[in-house]
């Protein structure tokens, strides 16, 4: 078994190579997480955090009607954005992988989709403001075309604007993993299905979708987690008319109410973790990633 021999031979001390990563994650992710959980049980007054053990932060969190409204609102965004980005991610990847040749053109078009990902989210978000506003490009075009006679009011500072911005910012997170999964499908498998008499849509349903499920799962995890954790899109694009769980949390942090903010953070973390574990229990993401 030559492969096995070479992999035991090299790299030397391979498990130690993970130490810097493990250490950094422990210090800047593990410890902070533990502290957030600890602080969520602390008491507080106007100026200080008081290290005792109280459950009042959680009691208030669960007794507040606002909590449930916020979650309902945030989950609503997550579900809509997930559905739209999945449609976009699947369609775009499918087009690139199965319809674009040669390989260099495929790569170029893929990069065209990914370039905005490497630029500022805030800038990309505010770029919708001159587009969707009352006197924005979209309304002016509609009026010029005679489709409407008053500017549409619901375009900006609304749920619609929030969803548009989410899709704009996060659809790449769906495209990249799905593209990656699809690109690894052996064309012979699809030819076999076609030769066996499967139509175009049957091939998609019974070959392409099952073989892309790792990518779909990864993309879904990203998109759901990003929407659930957002505060800036909802703040700007809803024009203050809507809110999310984290936006409410950030308002508490702004007035230095750390313990209730921490309790709210723990609640959100549990919800997001449950969603992610749910997705991972359907698809074994790790085995296909590193295996």
């Amino acid at each position: 078994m030559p492969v096995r021999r070479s992999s035991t031979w090299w790299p030397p001390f391979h498990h130690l190579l993970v130490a810097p990563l493990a250490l950094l994650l422990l210090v800047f992710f593990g410890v902070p997480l533990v502290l957030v959980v600890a602080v969520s049980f602390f008491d507080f007054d106007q100026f200080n955090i008081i290290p005792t053990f109280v459950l009042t932060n959680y009691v208030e969190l669960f007794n507040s009607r606002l909590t449930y409204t916020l979650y309902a609102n945030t989950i609503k965004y997550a579900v809509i954005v997930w559905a739209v980005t999945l449609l976009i991610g699947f369609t775009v990847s499918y087009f690139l992988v199965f319809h674009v040749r040669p390989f260099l053109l495929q790569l170029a078009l893929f990069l065209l989709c990914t370039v905005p990902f490497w630029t500022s989210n805030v800038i990309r978000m505010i770029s919708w403001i001159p587009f969707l506003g009352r006197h924005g490009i979209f309304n002016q075009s509609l009026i010029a075309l005679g489709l409407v006679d008053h500017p549409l009011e619901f375009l900006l500072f609304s749920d619609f604007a929030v969803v548009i911005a989410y899709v704009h910012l996060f659809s790449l997170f769906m495209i990249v993993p799905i593209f990656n999964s699809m690109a690894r499908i052996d064309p012979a498998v699809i030819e076999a299905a076609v030769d066996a008499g499967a139509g175009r849509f049957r091939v998609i349903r019974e070959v392409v979708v099952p073989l892309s499920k790792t990518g779909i799962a990864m993309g879904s995890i990203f998109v759901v987690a990003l929407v659930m954790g957002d505060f800036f899109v909802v703040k700007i694009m809803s024009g203050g008319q809507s809110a999310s769980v984290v936006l409410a949390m950030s308002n508490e942090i702004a007035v230095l109410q750390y313990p209730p903010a921490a309790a709210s953070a723990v609640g959100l973390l549990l919800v997001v973790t449950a969603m992610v574990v749910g997705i991972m229990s359907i698809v074994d993401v790790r085995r296909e990633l590193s295996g």
Partner: protein
Amino acid sequence: MPPGSGRRPWTFYALAAFFALYVLFLYGPMSAIFILSFQGPTGGLTFPMVGVSLHWFGALFEQQRTGDFAGSFTRSIALAVIVLSITVVVSVMAGLAFRRRFLGSTLVFYMAIFSLIIPGLLLGLGVGLTFQFLGIKPAWYSSALGAQLTWTLPFGLLIMFAVFSRFNPAYEEAARDLGAGPWQTLWNVVLPILLPGIIAVALFGFTLSYDEFPRTLIPIGSRNTLPLEIWAMTTNVTSPALYALGTLTTAVSFVVIAVALTSIAVIQRRRTRRGARTDAGD
């Protein structure tokens, strides 16, 4: 269904139209603000353009109007370079480690995944609290750096997974059979083969840090990075100066992306030219 049969199916045109619309959706609004950043001095946040000028770019450099633009820009670049360096070294090392299972590999993997998907502001809150409890003053080069690494390192790790899944161990074996030691193999064989992937990790490390703000917001300390200046501007600046800043910062990102992608392309081209026989698969 895959092309090759000369005539393209109708689905090709439908999908191509969908793709074109998506690209328009991605770039259309962005190009609008680039144009609007050249708005004349009396122009507003939307079309029409009232003349064309560099007025709003000039306004960025007036201290009182937009805060500390030059300082925050310098800090952002410095921070991004530090994040890039740490991300590259740590991700490559971890990528090598993860080629085999080891005690705790699952734990580290899940820690990385959850570090990636944890809501950014929440992570920032945690890092801020940690520094507060340790009695260390938060700063861009300490607490904010750490908070950004929780975002870039998992990306680096995932890219290394992708790179190694296409890596052919036969090259290492050949090096070993020719008498190379472990470090020689690493330095002269493995790392050069991985170079395009490493550049990709560097690109992610730089751009993700340079644009990051939800995680950085709380543990930044007293001196802002550029994205935090922009974030502050979105809530209180209602002039095209905001667009000018957006155009500038995006231009920087584009330069970085272009440099990274060009160097990857150059390496790949040189490689295919040099070794027509040692083809890497695909």
